[in-house]
């Protein structure tokens, strides 16, 4: 009787474990499979003046060349992406190179303020436009 009950308990425990594993799998898939839109925004934000030109590459995507007050969007899949930027001055010379890995975790779309990003500031992520 007691053994049977234990077996019953065991079986339900196992089922719960399997269920939990499946839910965890779902969450993980959600995490790694989500597609995000990364808005790249070369606009003045507070103290950070818009840059003359900045070329940005998100992961392996096409390079976005952004002049002053320009905005572009790139799509990435997964919780993390790499962003590489080259900042140009008026003469077309590269004055700064930045590469950074950014985590977005579960949030959907984000916007990167490039002047702030180029300045090495931490708060360069702003809410995505609707």
């Amino acid at each position, binding site marked *: 009787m007691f053994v049977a009950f234990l077996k019953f308990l065991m079986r339900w425990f196992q089922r719960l474990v399997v269920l939990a594993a499946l839910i965890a799998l779902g969450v993980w898939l*959600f995490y790694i499979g989500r597609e995000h839109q990364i808005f790249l925004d070369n606009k003045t934000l507070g103290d950070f003046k818009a840059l003359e030109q900045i070329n940005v590459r998100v992961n392996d995507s096409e390079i976005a060349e952004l002049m002053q007050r320009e905005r572009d969007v790139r799509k990435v899949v997964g919780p993390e992406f790499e962003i590489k930027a080259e900042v140009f001055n008026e003469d077309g010379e590269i004055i700064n190179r930045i590469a950074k890995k950014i985590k977005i975790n579960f949030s959907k779309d984000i916007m990167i303020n490039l002047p702030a990003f180029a300045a090495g500031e931490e708060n360069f992520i702003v809410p995505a436009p609707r």
Partner: protein
Amino acid sequence: MIRKLFDIIANNAVPAVFIIISAFAIPLSGFSASYLVQELLTRIGRNSFLILSLLIPIMAGMGLNFGMVLGAMAGQIGLLLICDWGIVGIPGMVLACLIGTPIAIVLGIFCGHILNRAKGREMVTSYILGFFINGVYQMVVLYLMGWIIPITNPNLLLSRGYGVRNAVSLSGIRAVLDNLIPTIITNPEGAKQFLNINGSGSFLLLQLPFFDGAIRLPLATFIIIALFCVFIIWFRKTKLGQDMRAIGQSQSVADSAGIPVNRTRIIAIVISTVLACYGQIIYLQNMGTLNTYNSHDQAGMFSIAALLIGGASVSKATITNVFVGVVLFHLMFIVAPMAGKNLIGEAQIGEYFRVFVSYGIIAIALVLHAWKRNREREAARRSLRGNKGGNA
């Protein structure tokens, strides 16, 4: 002896007729061989899984599971949700399956209970059940989504703010499974050309010496289908499979032997519904667009027709039937409109012809089944007299 020969012909009459029709229609259509092979491979990958999901209820003697559309709907709900969340690629597909599974299980259990209450008319009941659940599905998708069930992606919603659009683009998961292992079949000559253009590396090249043209093979999908076939073969060998076969042949005997008949029947339907859910997801990843209110309807009818054309009957179906059926049915499907156009100058005729064939073949299969069953019943009664009978 002659009777046996007659039986063999009778049992394979349907595939034979289709081979003959195709033999006439293929030249009429004027399609090239490589085009046909490409189309067929695509469609085998697209449809086989759905059709395979029909096998298990047939094994359990429940006939053709017209209720498989329930599973298809569950899969579509999974797809709609991942679309809204923006989950793409293989993770998106797997997540859609993961979401669809519990819905399919619940629907399957419901369907199983209903069918247990309608023994002897499983098919017509599951057929009507499909319509009924379709109503519930429409209620959910058309009114609750975007209202109670949060849907935020404006590309999915109707302009009124709730309810899903009629056509949803599945660009995020389009052909992800088919192209997971990109494979090209071509002849050595074509292989060289291909390498020149694309460079080596990302493609698996299969070279067949006499092959004309180059076609893409959805290898990953085929691997999944092969795995599924292995699953079915394995399943037949399990105790559960054995119990289903027993129930399929005689419910009363199985019951008196202590096999839980109703429960086993429900399990059969649940398995079928869940598999149909996966099948529909595979189907739609290939298509790339979801017709929110129509895709599932056609899934059921075409799958059943294909299975029957493959030589299956209401009470017996094998994996071979599935593949023969999918090839023959879709061969006709591809060829008929063109053949119709070239023959009568009206493509519409071919369109209607293939619809007619789909329905007609199901009707004929059902008639033959009922007829045969009634004849067998009579024969069984006659055999009771034994050979001592004195009609001499």
